[in-house]
């Protein structure tokens, strides 16, 4: 026990002493993540790919839709500047791969962001309130789950026409379902935790409890799932493009390029190899980062 004078001394020193910085769970996780070599390497590679995609127009004298009549479907050649070769229409493949990266990464990130916002909010609300609200909300998710995805996308395309924005919406609209389920499950287990009860007892509103107490604590698994969703979305977009439902010419994505390359695999292998390498590399990187994050955020889980 402290005596009175010690206490007053403490009180007086309250303002004077410098505050000690705490080490949050997020910071711990970050430190663990940066110790993971595979994850750090992946982040560097992804950073480079992203940077290349952003500054693509500066890297080559050719535009992505510019036809070079002298070199149609020619192999890689450093002397004329077509370092990845050209495609069947004489367009520079290097620039097209980087423009494809723009589309693929944007689809991946945006669709995941859409799924994140809808899924986390929806799942947290369903899990937090529980009971009838939960049942109704989750049955709705089950119904959406049972819709065949391809059918859904084709319908969207037929009704609204082919549009890159629609792909974001379609992919986001499908991916949030799993996110909602994950978040709901996590929230259900959090709901009975004592710090939530303490917030209740204090009179914090439900809305604030969800956003201040529930969501920050479910974010761990959510982030991991998110990094694994991005490659999934990129892959799905590639698949849609491969089927001819994706982006429209002359804009391109990795899926479109791979699809074109696959048709001429015997005559001009480079048209398949370069976009495929970029796609595979990106997917690998996201998966490594996802694994690294999972280990970093949940050290007990290893």
């Amino acid at each position, binding site marked *: *026990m*402290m005596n009175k004078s010690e*206490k007053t001394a*403490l*009180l007086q*020193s*309250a*303002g004077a*002493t*410098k*505050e*000690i*910085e*705490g*080490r*949050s*769970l*997020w910071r711990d996780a970050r430190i663990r993540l940066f110790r993971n070599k595979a994850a750090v390497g992946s982040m560097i590679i992804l950073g480079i790919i992203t940077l290349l995609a952003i500054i693509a127009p500066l890297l080559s004298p050719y535009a992505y839709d510019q036809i070079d009549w002298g070199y149609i479907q020619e192999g890689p050649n450093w002397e004329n500047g077509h370092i990845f070769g050209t495609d069947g229409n004489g367009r520079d493949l290097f620039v097209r791969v980087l423009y494809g990266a723009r589309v693929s990464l944007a689809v991946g990130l945006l669709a995941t962001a859409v799924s994140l916002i809808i899924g986390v909010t929806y799942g947290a609300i369903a899990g937090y309130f529980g009971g009838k609200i939960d049942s109704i909300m989750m049955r709705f998710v089950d119904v959406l789950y049972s819709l065949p995805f391809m059918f859904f996308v084709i319908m969207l395309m037929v009704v609204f026409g082919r549009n890159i924005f629609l792909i974001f919406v379609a992919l986001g609209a499908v991916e949030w379902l799993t996110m909602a389920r994950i978040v709901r499950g996590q929230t259900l287990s959090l709901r009975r*935790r*004592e*710090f939530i*009860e*303490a*917030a*209740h*007892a*204090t*009179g*914090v*509103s439900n809305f*604030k409890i969800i956003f*201040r*107490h529930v969501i*920050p*604590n479910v974010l761990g698994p959510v982030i991991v799932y998110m990094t694994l969703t991005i490659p999934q979305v990129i892959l799905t977009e590639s698949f849609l493009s491969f089927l001819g439902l994706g982006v429209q010419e002359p804009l391109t994505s990795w899926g479109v390029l791979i699809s074109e390359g696959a048709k001429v695999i015997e005559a001009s292998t480079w048209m398949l190899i370069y976009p495929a390498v970029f796609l595979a590399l990106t997917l690998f990187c996201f998966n490594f980062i996802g694994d690294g994050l999972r280990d970093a955020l949940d050290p007990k889980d290893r």
Partner: protein
Amino acid sequence: MTVMTAPDKRDNAPILSVRDLKVHFPIPGKGLFAKDRPLKAVDGVNFDLFPGETLGVVGESGCGKSTLGRAILQLIAPSGGQVAWLGKNIVGIPHRDMQPLRRDFQIIFQDPLACLNPRMTIGEIIAEPLVTHKPELGKDEIKTRVKRMMARVGLLPQMINRYPHEFSGGQCQRIGIARAMILEPKLIVCDEPVSALDVSIQAQIVNLLQELQREFDLSLIFISHDLSIVRHICHRIMVLYLGNVMELADRDSIYAAPRHPYTKALISAVPIPDPEIERNKERIVLTGDLPSPLSPPSGCVFRTRCPFAQEKCATDVPKIDRVSETQEVACHFHDNI
């Protein structure tokens, strides 16, 4: 630490009156069309709590102590009865009317770490009630108050930016107390606040609670199964068994002359730190376990384990009898045993 004497506040109006409080949880019946069966966690509890008083709630695991505490705070909706706060019933009132009342009562939990959000700094945790109920205060004012309260409960104020996992159990419990105290409430329900701590820390926390109680004229409902601590801190003690009150009395009466056989058994189980006395004392050992609250015994709920049970106990539910000014017992034969 001196043992406190009970404040003589019977003349005052009670701060909290609980009348016939019931919490029944519906348990789905077996079979497709079976009816739900009620699990009677708390079944008709009555008591008054006066300002500045500590009421101990004791009983074995599963007797409804925690449920009672939460039902009083309306964290679990009671299925019947009344809880009157300063004379006004708060059972079943709309959420909107309940929120402003919450600044007056708080809760302290058993598990010190689990009751703190691991993603928030302790400054944010302690400030949360202030931010919720007094949003008009500026950031600096809130911070000053949080630091003052941290110092008051024995935490270093410069720790304000640390996270719960950086503290020990006792310190976490101090954080929990600071959060409960920051709005200067009138009632705190302490749900086994020290049972997760080791003994030296228990004493510190209990003494801290007593100091705060004196300073702020706080009423406490102290839920515990540790009879020594209850004896140290409580003015009155309520013994619960299977959601029913067995005995409610002043601390001194209940330890000196327990009237209910269950209370006698509980008190005889408290070890006395003197081997001579301990060896020779009369020990009432109860056999069996707590019956299922889904199918409580008929009549007196304690009869299945009561060494004095007679036929009447199986048929009639004992009424609460006032045996003296300060002691109430629910037993048919409290005069004879």
